[in-house]
Structures are given as C-alpha cells and as structure tokens.
C-alpha cells in the first residue's frame, strides 16, 4: 500500500462524508427553521401567515419551570383553574344545538405588541387576520370525547386554545384535508396554542394518541364561518 491513495479512499474523506446529513441545515435555514443563527434567513411574512411553520412561541419562555404553575394572568394555567374556566366557558358559550360559539369578552385587556410581534401583526393585517386579542377557548380531552365536541369559529379571528387531558394522554388533531395540525395533550398539563383560521370550512378533530377501547370514536368538529 505504498501507492498514494485516491482522496475518495482516504479515511478523512470517508469520515467527513459521514457527516453529509448535516447538509440539511442549509434547507432548514432557508425556511427560517434553523436552530442556530448560522446562515439563517428570516421567513417572509407570507410564510408566517400560512401554516404557522414559523411558530413564534408565547412571551413567557421558561415553560418548563414548575414554579409557573398556578399563574393565571399572562402565565400558564393550573389544572384547577383550567377546570373552573372550562366549565364557565361551556356555560357561557354553549348554544341550543349543543355546539359552542365563543365570542370576544368586551372587557378584554388591550394587547401591546412587542417589537417581535410587530412584523407578525403586519402579516396578519395583510392576510385579513384580526389583530385583536385572541378569544379564549377551553378544550378538554377525556376518555373518549372532546369537550366541547362542536366548535363554531370565525375566519380571521385569533383564538387562544387552552387544552388539557383529564385522564390519560390524548392527542387533538385538526384535519385540513391536505394535512393536519396535531397537539399532544398530557393529563393535568395545560397546553396553549393560538390559532387563526384563514378559510371557512368544517374540520374534523380527532384523537391521535391511543387512549383505550373508545379511541377510534373520539372526535369533534370545528366549523369555521
């Protein structure tokens, strides 16, 4: 083996090629989804308003901090507070046919957007999305139903979904035909998701985590008008 090796047969070359999968970082960066700032390009406003692939996280970033439990205003809800508000939500917004149509509470506090929000709001206006404070929706998943199981929402209106599983882990997925949007829900853990629907339509909501023998029947409907 005294002859000079071709570079494709050198150990260093082979070892370097083994890291080829890292090349995907460039694609992530191009879509504004790179974990590090290297080569990252900010997603356009268009991208932000479609499908939420640039999911901006809520203002409070230390979500794993247990000391946050029990906070209500501006912080995550405790399970007890969630249960109280959920019951109140159903009582207030349930209609005669059993569906729930949440509407804005007149006394809602004015939201002051920070600088990071400003771009988002401009995009929102461009796409006909209301920049009003989101309407709170309380959504409970339990064996083997969602509560409420029929929601009526408005196009362009932001909704803040506060969601929790009451017994075992569940999923809540909204079907849009070409794709779905999934949330995994754990018992006694309130998950927050801000959603704005851009088109009218009726969407199936279904459980995506096997939760027992009635799992297949665990579904609901969101009607957007």
């Amino acid at each position: 083996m005294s002859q000079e090796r071709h570079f494709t047969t050198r150990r260093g070359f082979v070892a370097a090629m083994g890291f080829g999968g890292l090349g995907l970082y460039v694609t992530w960066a191009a879509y504004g989804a790179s974990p590090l700032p290297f080569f990252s390009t900010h997603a356009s406003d268009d991208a932000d308003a479609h499908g939420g692939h640039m999911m901006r996280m809520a203002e409070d970033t230390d979500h794993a901090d247990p000391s946050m439990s029990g906070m209500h205003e501006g912080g995550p809800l405790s399970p007890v507070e969630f249960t109280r508000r959920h019951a109140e939500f159903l009582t207030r917004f349930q209609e005669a046919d059993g569906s729930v149509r949440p509407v804005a509470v007149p006394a809602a506090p004015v939201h002051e957007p920070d600088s990071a929000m400003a771009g988002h709001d401009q995009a929102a206006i461009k796409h006909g999305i209301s920049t009003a404070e989101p309407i709170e929706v309380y959504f409970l998943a339990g064996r083997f139903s969602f509560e409420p199981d029929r929601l009526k929402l408005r196009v362009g209106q932001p909704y803040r979904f506060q969601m929790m599983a009451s017994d075992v882990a569940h999923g809540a997925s909204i079907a849009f035909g070409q794709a779905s949007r999934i949330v995994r829900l754990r018992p006694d853990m309130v998950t927050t998701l801000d959603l704005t629907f851009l088109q009218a339509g009726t969407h199936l909501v279904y459980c995506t985590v096997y939760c027992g023998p009635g799992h297949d029947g665990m579904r609901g409907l969101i009607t957007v008008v």
Partner: protein
Amino acid sequence: MTEITFPAGAANQAEADRGPLSARIAALPRVDRRLLLGFVCVSLLALVLGLGFGLTTALARGGMIALDADSAYRVLTLHGTSAFFWWLYLAQVALMIGLAAGESTEGLKARPLIIAGVVVLVSGLVLSEGTALLRTPLLYDANPDLGREDPRAVAGMAGGHLLLALGLVLTSLAAIVTVLRARDRVTGAMTAMGFGVLAWAGFLIVSAIAAVNAFLPNLLWAFGRGAFPADAATEWHILFHNLHYLPLMATVLTWYALTQETTGTTSAFGSGFSKVVFSSYLVFVPPTSLYHMFLEPNLAESVRVTGSLLSLFVSVPTLTAFLVIVSSLELATRAKGTPAGLFGWIGRLPWGNPAFSAMGVAIVSTLLGLVFAFVLIQEKFAPLISDTLFVPGYFHFFAVGAVTETFLAGFLVIIPALTGRAVWQPRLMAAMPWLVLVGLVIFGACGMLAGLQGVPRRTFDIAYDGAAPAGWHALMVGFAVGAMVFASGLAIELFGVLRMLVGGKRGVPMAAMAPRPAGVPGGAAWTGPIAVVLLVALMTGATIGTFEVMRSLPIVVVGGHAGH
C-alpha cells in the same frame, strides 16, 4: 504523555487469515452450536408472530378485514411486542453470540450465563405474549396509563420487558467475556469484529439498564409497592431511543461480517478505522435522543431546538459505515478487472447469493429510510407528522427492509454452518428481498402520504362516520397492499430459513469467500460518496416538500406548549 496506538494493516491481515465465518461457526463445539440454534429458533418464532400480527394489523387498517376495537389493539400490541422487542432482540442475541463465538477457536466462554439467558428470555417471551393476548392491550410500550384498571396487564408487560433486559445482560456478558478472551495472546489486540461485539454488547447492557429505569416503577406500582409511574412516558422515550438505535448498530456489524463472508472483502480502511466507526454509534446515541419528544407539551423550547440541531448527527455512524463497506467493495471488485463505467462494478457483485442480495436490499432500504427519518428530526414538523402514519410508513424501511433483511442474511450464513443443510431455493431466496423492497416502497409511500395528510398512527377506524378527508381511505388500501406484498416476500424468506432448520437438503453451504485484505492500488471509489450526495439531495427534497405542505395549511399557529 499517552498516545493511542492505531493498528491498521497487521490487524487486517490477522482478520483475513482466520478464514470464513461459516467455517469458524461450523467448527464450534457441539454445545455452542446447539445454543446458537436455540436462539435462532426462538427469534424466528418471534418473527413469525410479529409478521402474522403485523399483516393482520395492516389489513385491518386498510379495511380488508374487520376487527372489533379490543381485538384490533390487541393485535397491534402483539405485533409491536413480537416484532420490535422479541424478534429484533432475540435475533441480535443470536447474531452477537454467533459473531462472538466466531472470534474464538475455543467457542463460547461463560456458557452458564448463556444457558441462563435462554431460560430467562424464553420466560420473558411467554410472559409478554401471554399478557398481550389475555389482558388489556397496552400497546408495545406497555403504557401504565392504559392499565390503571388492570394492573396485571402492566405487571405482565413490564415483567416480560424486564426479563428481556435480564436476558440481554446475561448473554451480553458472555459475549464480552468471549471476545476479551479471544484477543491476541501477545499483543492483546482485538479484531474489528471482536471490538464491535464488545461495543454492541456494552450498549445492550446499558439499554437493559434503561429498561429497568422505564419498567421497574411500572412493575412495583402494579404489585402495590410504589407510586403510580407518572414519568413513564419520558422514561419510555429514553429506552426507546436506545432500542431503535441498537438494531441499526447490529445491522452494520452484520454487514461488515457478511461483506467479508460473501465477497471475501475486508475493509480497505483498516480494522482500526472500523473500530472507530463502531464506537461512534455509542458516541452519537446520547446526544441525538431528544427528537422522539418533540411533540411533548412540557419540553422546553430551548431543549426542542437543541434536540433538532443535535439530531442532524443521527446518521453519522451509519453513513460512515456505509461508505466503508461500499468503497471497500468497489475497490476490491475493480481490482479483479475493469468493469465499465462508474457503476459497472455493482453488476459483478454476488447478487445470486441470497445473503448478499438481502444485504444489498438492506443497504438500499436504509438509505430510503434515512431520507424520511431526516424529515422527522426537524422539530417544526412534529405537529404535522408525529403520531401519524408517516412514522410507521418510514420506520418499516429500517425495521423490515434494513434490519430484518440483514438479520435474515446473517441467519442464511449461520444456519447452514450449524445444520449442514443447504440454502433452500437460492435463486428464489435471492429474489425475495427485492419483492420485500417493492412492497415496502408501496407501504411506505402510502403510509407517509397518509401521515402527511393527518391519518393517525394508532387508530383503526379512520372513517369517523364520513367526516374524514376523502383521500384517506385510498391511501390506507395502498398501505395494506404494500404490507401484503412485503409480508409475502418475507414469509417466503422465512420459510426458506426454516427449511434450513427442518427437512432441508443436506449439502454444501453457499460458497463462502476466503477473506483477503482489500488493497488500495491508487484507485478511486466514487459510488459511496455519490450515493451520499444523492441521499442529501433526496433528504432536502423531502424536507422542502414537508415545509411546503406545512405552509399550505390555512391557519396561523403560535405556541403549542404546556405551562407545567
């Protein structure tokens, strides 16, 4: 000052001088051959069960057979338990013991540990299957949440998994002792395979520790000796990461042995480099573990982002091993003549050998699996495809196409050496892996498309009384058809393997090639690097496609995390 010695040529020559693996296996003491056959038989039983229940699951999901909810989830539990836990791990034990024994001229060491391992593993298999058959179906992860009203189900499933863990520890210890005693008496050097078995066995032991961490609290709760395991989901994810990485490491080690056995080619990069590659699996396992949890609501955003970045490294060991094997094969084949063109050498490989054919399909299937695995490691996609049929759609490229085909290829070398029976219908057996691949492509394409559209992973009735999107049903039919095709190919391969155990013709095993060190006469080896570039291009295409699907959703989403 300390320096690490890096043997290359000498160790390679020593490996080449030992002769084929099949000859070394055939020369083992009778007791070792019987033990090895025992593990092979039990693992094949698990494969029969896993395949049968898996096909039933796919047919039920495609609407081709009707199952009530209890039966459906019981079948799914049996499929996951039989295939993922028992087939993949019993087969690993069989191959690990076989490769370890092949290192030593005196056969296995610490045989009492192996005998105890057989007893423990068979007991665990019976307990797992019995519980899955008779008690509340908890799925293969033995979720204690689903067994709150049936603690015996939790105890049985956790007990089965813990017995598997104990069996892995016992057999791995024996493998470690065997390869340590087989070291060169003068220098203490190990062959690449000897070191690979050591690293593999060590990883199996750590995974057994992870199993104890995950399942012992469940068992204690079920027996009324502990609190309810509230962290069971997290502990399962820790174990699962090891469990899905281990078969891939075993696969690559088996490729290494099969390449030598079926073509006579040893690594062109030296045994020292192979040892580095094998140990790199252990280096890249811990940091890449977070991507299984991206959909967990309580995972901090910083962890989610870091996990996504680290997951980019998940393929490093497998791609490097792939390059070592493919480039070594290319150099060795080109050294025999001058095949036309860039890829002409591929046609000169021994595709008529069923073991090589299965390995070739396994390599292609691994690359296909990697294309889509890299979609899942982007945390932004978790709300789009985690918990959907996309996951089983892609991972069967690994579980069936890569790992199962490789393990069966290993058995096609080991079993004839143990029984003296020839491979049944070699031409048919060499063709079947390609049929499996065709089925997997149909199954994977339909499953991943269905997953992208939102079809849930573990739901049998997805009609939702007519409320489901229109395209779902057709994709599920394709998914079931794909399963039928690959299950047919696999069933024929399985039959052929069983014929080498019972009733097959006695005869000469497939020609094993005498190993020789692969020289590097200044030639180039372009196929591996081109394949990696193509792979990255396909990964990029799949990722862009998924981003575009995500952009098409008519919603704006912010958040998706929990407070506590």
